């Protein structure tokens, strides 16, 4: 009983429990509404568009899945197993498409390859008006675009997995007489499977969550349908039901990933292990390898960025500069900044408290809260709305009773709701990053601090926070950029008239105003490069200057309880 009393007095545990519970609530709301489906709505959906939505969504997942597997695994194999001109450079250039939200490259491709775009116009000019060209606004177009931005999430873990094996296993296999493609199919691929499965699941969840691209391409998936019934018909119950089904698909993916991974664990070591068995390509093979890697980088990053630059410069020359650009920029930076601070703060509270004492209930809520990252923004938006509306109505009722005033809808449709939704979606990102740096600090550091008279808060402030400064910055950057890019939840929850860069891109591109959308899109891409730089830094540890205290002190490395 004594022990229970101690637990109740623990203010850190309360704080962590509160954070975890608040973030888990919307997720639990969506899950619980699965249990009470509305037959009416389903009948209506069934009679109208449901079949098309499901078919389109599944087809999208299949197509993107195959696409990112081929590109991601293929390129990872190429850069780890062979030497060719520019290999070292391509190794990290190939990560760059990660900076590009799918909806940005999506609208650029649409503009370039559309009937009125430069490519088709040019071809017609050369070969006459009858020339056939595939329609970019189609299933194939959507899959191409998503594959190009999502393959790095397979490429990265696959590359790491190949590197880790190469030195040990591959030489052993070669010594036993296995070579070339046999080696790839029999040894490398099976060993890398857990890593690849994790990357693939991540890519597919992103594809499921995407709204901007499919909307621009007129390809109706769940996210598009949710948006339409929400804004087009103001039918929130129907949106909720669709969100539920999308959630089921996401959970299915989650489980599938677990199966594919098997019992193996996905891990990613930082720092590069040079593959000793890399084969040097010569002649046309070498140039072909460089050519393929270069083509991907060009198509998925360089050309789109160049196009954005051209449009931006042309636009500013013709006085088409969007007068409200600064307003969008400030809104975006503010939202992203607030969310980054809140998410990192919440992550510190949760991870530090669980480090102190592993309370199973708080740990469970923290686990549920971290599922938010797998959930599409549209689903989270729906889940956030329910508890916020409930709170607003309660508050309103209380104020009317006691003071006779109405608070109206205080939180619903305010920035609070939006930040809340972002927090639900991105808390897992900050928690993971903060925890990764926190576990590097040995528990006896805490004990040393406590025995020298520092309270738990004092230990956090005087020891942990200075030591994990780098990790906190990384976490903040990751959340910041994710918020910048986020589109569907922002569209559904933003306060009326409160537009961000992503919202602006959506508004302009849905009206085919490509050039005008270039500047906000370019800004988002510029932000997206930050986490890529963090990744590259992880791939190639910098010596000296920028290395943090943690990295300098060998005794802290890998010492986990």
């Amino acid at each position, binding site marked *: 009983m004594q022990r229970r009393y101690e637990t109740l007095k623990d203010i850190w545990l309360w704080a962590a429990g509160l954070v975890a519970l608040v973030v888990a609530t919307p997720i639990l709301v969506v899950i619980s509404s699965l249990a009470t489906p509305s037959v009416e709505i389903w009948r209506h959906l069934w009679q109208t568009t449901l079949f098309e939505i499901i078919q389109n969504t599944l087809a999208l997942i299949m197509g993107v899945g195959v696409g990112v597997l081929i590109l991601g695994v293929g390129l990872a194999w190429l850069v780890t197993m062979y030497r060719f001109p520019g290999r070292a450079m391509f190794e990290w250039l190939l990560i760059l498409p990660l900076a590009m939200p799918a909806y940005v490259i999506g609208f650029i491709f649409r503009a370039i390859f559309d009937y009125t775009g430069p490519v088709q116009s040019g071809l017609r000019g050369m070969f006459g008006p009858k020339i056939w060209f595939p329609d970019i606004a189609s299933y194939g177009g959507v899959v191409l675009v998503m594959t190009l931005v999502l393959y790095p999430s397979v490429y990265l873990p696959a590359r790491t997995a190949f590197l880790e094996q190469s030195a040990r296993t591959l030489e052993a296999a070669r010594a036993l007489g296995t070579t070339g493609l046999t080696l790839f199919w029999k040894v490398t691929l099976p060993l890398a499977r857990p890593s690849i499965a994790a990357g693939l699941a991540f890519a597919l969840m992103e594809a499921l969550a995407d709204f901007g691209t499919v909307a621009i391409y007129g390809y109706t998936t769940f996210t598009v349908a949710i948006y339409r019934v929400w804004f087009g018909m103001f039918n929130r119950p129907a949106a909720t039901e669709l969100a539920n089904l999308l959630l089921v698909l996401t959970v299915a993916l989650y489980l599938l990933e677990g199966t594919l991974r098997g019992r193996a664990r996905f891990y990613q070591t930082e720092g590069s292990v040079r593959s000793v068995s890399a084969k040097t390509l010569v002649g046309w093979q070498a140039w072909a390898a460089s050519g393929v890697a270069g083509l991907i980088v060009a198509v998925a990053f360089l050309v789109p960025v160049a196009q954005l630059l051209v449009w931006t410069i042309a636009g500013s020359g013709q006085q088409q500069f969007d007068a409200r650009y600064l307003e969008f920029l400030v809104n975006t930076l503010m939202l992203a900044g607030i969310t980054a601070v809140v998410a990192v703060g919440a992550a510190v509270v949760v991870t530090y408290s669980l480090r102190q004492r592993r309370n199973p209930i708080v740990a469970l809520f923290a686990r549920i809260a971290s599922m938010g990252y797998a959930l599409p923004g549209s689903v989270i938006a729906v889940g956030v709305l329910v508890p916020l509306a409930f709170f607003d109505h309660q508050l309103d009722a209380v104020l009317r009773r006691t003071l006779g005033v109405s608070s109206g809808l205080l939180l619903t449709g305010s920035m609070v709701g939006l930040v809340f939704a972002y927090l639900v979606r991105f808390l897992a990102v900050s928690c993971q990053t903060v925890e990764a740096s926190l576990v590097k600090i040995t528990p006896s550091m805490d004990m040393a601090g406590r*025995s020298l*008279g520092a309270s738990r808060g004092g230990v956090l402030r005087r020891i942990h926070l200075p030591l994990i400064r780098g990790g906190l910055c990384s976490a903040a950057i990751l959340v910041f950029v994710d918020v910048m890019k986020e589109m569907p939840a922002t569209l559904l929850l933003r306060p009326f008239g409160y537009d961000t860069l992503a919202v602006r891109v959506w508004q302009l591109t849905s009206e085919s105003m490509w050039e005008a959308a270039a500047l906000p899109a370019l800004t988002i891409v510029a932000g997206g490069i930050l986490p890529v730089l963090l990744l590259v830094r992880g791939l190639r540890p910098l010596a000296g200057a920028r290395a943090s205290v943690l990295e300098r002190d060998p*005794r802290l490395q890998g010492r986990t309880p």
Partner: protein
Amino acid sequence: MSLLRLAGLTKHYSSRDLPAVDHLTLEVEKGEILALLGPSGCGKTTTLRLIAGFERPDAGTIEIGGRTVADAQTFVSPEQRGVGMVFQEYTLFPHLTVEANIGFGLRRLGYPGRAQRIKEMLETAALTSLARRYPHELSGGQQQRAALARALAPHPAILLLDEPFSNLDATLRAHMLHEVYTILRELGTTAIFVTHDQEEAFMVADRVGVVNRGQLEQIGRPEEIYHLPATPFVARFVGKANFLPGRVVGVGIETEIGTFPNTANLPEGSMVEVVIRPDQMELMPDRFGSAVVISRRFRGADTLLVVQFPSGLILHSYQPSSVMLLPKEQVKVVTRPTPVVAFPAEVPQP
């Protein structure tokens, strides 16, 4: 009046396992250095953590300087116990210089007081010239001294050291052992240190407590522990020991190599085991001796000889390296244990 008093201290980590600390009771006097000696996993580190306040006891009380810091009703948090701690891996704060590390626990002092105390501790630990260095720029021994200075700076009522020497190589270890001992004595510090190495315990401690399976097997001066082990475990764990089976007959204990006085007053007729240290016997070449040398291992200062009796009994003996006995040689075994230590036999004799 003892400074630290543990009474019936008990701690379970999980309800299924045996307790990590099991009804431990001991007292430490002011200015005394106590070593807790035991194999790994015996509960000695858990005892330190309980004293420091990083674990809550399931039962029992802890008093420091007459103040109860843990019992069924009370739990004083670590930062309010006035207990200093030195860890195996030193755990200096890597983002702080040596002087900032030492000053970490001195927040309550104002600036002049803090600077003064840091200066004192730097001098005591011979670190004055390294005050501005960061921990990773120090050698192992320097880190050790810095950690000690940091823990001692706030005048802790008691200092706890958890395996403080086990990270050092043999040469440095002997040196640090001496330095730490000197500093602790100079400051009159009350200290408990935990080790699995009896040599460390004997060299530094006034008293040694031998811990096994969470229980205190014996506590006493190093000489007592070595010469008068209270239990077979202590006899076996502290130094090497031969267990010579015998039977209590009249006033003595009859064994294969002679009769020993029954100083422990074991009951007449019972089967017992007499503890014989390997350095407590002499081997003499004797063609009619009952034992035969079966192996010989040169150890440097002495030689380990293993002898076997016709009954199959095997004894280990350390002999000066000058003793030139060879395997297969017949020997006569003369033991002179003083005093004689005997325990009731652990396994019934056939």
